[in-house]
């Protein structure tokens, strides 16, 4: 009986010949990542010194820290946090990525998405490194274990396999694939397991699209998502990889707890209605609903294909008067390329508000909504209060839908514009 890619990666990280789902092991992460955030990194840095007597990490190249929240800062207190982070990284010779973009994307750009690597973070959206055959798990507070010990305790997860088939129709994007997965499998379908995506339909999706899907894995209950590394994904990751590792893939006879097939041709644009990421609906049911703002960005979306489709829809058109459209490329690398291709000038001329990469739009730190307001968003989450007042609402959808809705001032079907 064969092994899943997850079992293979964890076996190597645990220094064992093989492990099986259900085994409780100690595994050494190849990389330990975090962004600075009050109550997380500032606490770890303090505890490392004061509770564990660790003045300097032993293998600084295993660590990577990002400053992507509270960028730019709005108070001296926030700047103090960043100052402390910069100082810790300097003292420990740990690489720091500040103002390069949203860390989960930058992590792929700078090579932490090494195929075959085991990566931990406190934030679960790091799952998107799975696009490149990297097993990346968000541990919440428990990531402290990886800051003070070489290995972390982990129970080898089972895997749910989802095979995609066929091709997406125009106006339907990778976001819709993920929200469809939640709809048909359910928000607890992959609890404590790994969501492994495969099938011939995978090759119809771009790297960016697969990053959108793997980023959101937690809303199926999954610990992370992963894809066998191959083709352009493998080339991208290998050319940037920070570590020499043999890429691994699931064996054809690997054991899965469930296998699902999804026909991409059958999908239509979806919208995820508040207040939970479990609420996937057909977009057509909500067309015409008034919205006040649109957010195109986040670690889930906001990449070149998202910005391209928005520019295509908005070219020669205008954002409706009074509607606030925010377009925030996921990273500087993406923003620069979107500029070279002319997407940003098209969006600016259409009336979009453009900003350099930051996590802050996604959780309401800026562009904050007040009571009674409603947004269409490519952000990660639509729970109450996520983008401001608990009495505002977030409708999650793909980037094309955000652009079409910006023109009409209400939820709109992008297919009319494509």
């Amino acid at each position, binding site marked *: 009986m064969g092994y899943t890619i997850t079992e293979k990666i964890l076996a190597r990280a645990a220094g064992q010949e093989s492990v099986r789902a259900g085994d409780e092991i100690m595994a050494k992460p190849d990389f330990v990542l975090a962004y600075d955030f009050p109550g997380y990194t500032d606490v770890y840095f303090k505890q490392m010194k004061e509770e564990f007597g660790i003045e300097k990490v032993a293998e600084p190249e295993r660590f990577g820290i990002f400053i992507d929240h509270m960028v730019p800062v709005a108070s001296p207190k926030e700047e103090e946090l960043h100052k402390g982070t910069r100082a810790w990284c300097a003292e420990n010779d740990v690489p720091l990525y500040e103002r390069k973009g949203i860390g989960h994307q930058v992590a792929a750009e700078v090579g932490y998405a090494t195929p075959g690597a085991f990566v931990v973070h406190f934030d679960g959206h790091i799952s998107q490194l799975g696009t490149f055959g990297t097993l990346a798990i968000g541990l*919440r507070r428990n990531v402290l274990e990886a800051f003070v*010990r070489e290995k972390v305790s982990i129970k080898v997860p089972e895997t749910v396999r989802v095979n995609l088939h066929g091709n997406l129709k125009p106006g339907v994007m990778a976001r819709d694939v993920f929200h469809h997965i939640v709809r048909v499998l359910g928000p607890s379908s992959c609890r404590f397991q790994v969501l492994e995506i495969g099938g011939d339909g995978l090759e119809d999706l771009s790297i960016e699209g697969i990053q959108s899907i793997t980023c959101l894995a937690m809303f199926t209950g999954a610990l992370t998502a992963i894809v066998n590394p191959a083709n352009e994904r493998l080339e991208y990751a290998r050319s940037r990889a920070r570590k020499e590792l043999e890429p691994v893939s699931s064996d054809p006879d690997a054991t899965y707890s469930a296998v699902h097939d999804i026909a991409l041709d059958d999908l239509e644009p979806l919208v995820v209605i508040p207040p939970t990421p479990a609420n996937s609906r057909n977009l057509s049911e909500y067309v015409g609903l008034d919205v006040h703002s649109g957010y195109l960005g986040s670690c889930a979306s906001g990449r070149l294909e998202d910005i391209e489709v928005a520019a295509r829809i908005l070219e020669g058109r205008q954002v409706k008067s009074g509607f606030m459209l925010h377009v925030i490329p996921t990273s500087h690398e993406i923003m620069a390329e979107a500029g070279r291709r002319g997407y940003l000038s098209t969006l600016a001329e259409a009336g979009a508000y453009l900003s350099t990469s930051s996590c802050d739009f996604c959780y309401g730190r800026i562009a904050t909504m007040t009571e009674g307001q409603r947004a269409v968003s490519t952000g990660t989450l639509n*729970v109450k209060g996520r983008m401001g007042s608990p009495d505002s609402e977030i409708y999650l959808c793909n980037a094309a839908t955000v652009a079409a809705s910006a023109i009409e001032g209400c939820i709109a079907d992008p297919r009319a514009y494509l």
Partner: protein
Amino acid sequence: MALKNLRGRVAFIFEDDDFDVDQIVGVKNIKIQDLDELAGLAMTTYDPEFGSKVQPGDLIVGGHNFGFGHPHYPPMKALRHLGITGVVAESFSPGYWRGEISMGFPQISCPGIRAFVDRWDEIEVDWEAGIVRNISRGTDIAFEPLALADRAMLEAGGLLEYLKANTEENTQ
């Protein structure tokens, strides 16, 4: 160190699956740090008199995928402040589970628990036997065993204590 059995009444049953725990204190209160203030707000939308009815040792019962969404720590801090000693649910969302276990707060995954109890029944979580006893009804039901690391973390009283208790493994 053995885990001490939990014994108390079922102070509330969240019937809904995929329950978002932030609702316990309300999203608008999620940034409140003061425990007395938080505890005063907790559960008021579900039962305005919750704070006066609950007793130290009581437990909470939940449905499937308890803790789904984007769980924050204050709601359970508030419930612990009111004396709640654990949550028994049909199943849990992993992010919530990991967060609360790291706080040393017992979480018991027990398929069938909703039908097994009524509100205010007296129950006991017997760690060694691996069962939840309904003292009021005189019945019992098995729960899913804890992973070794989760159990060790609960025994230690939380993540920090767990890591400090195993300092020989701290190799950085």
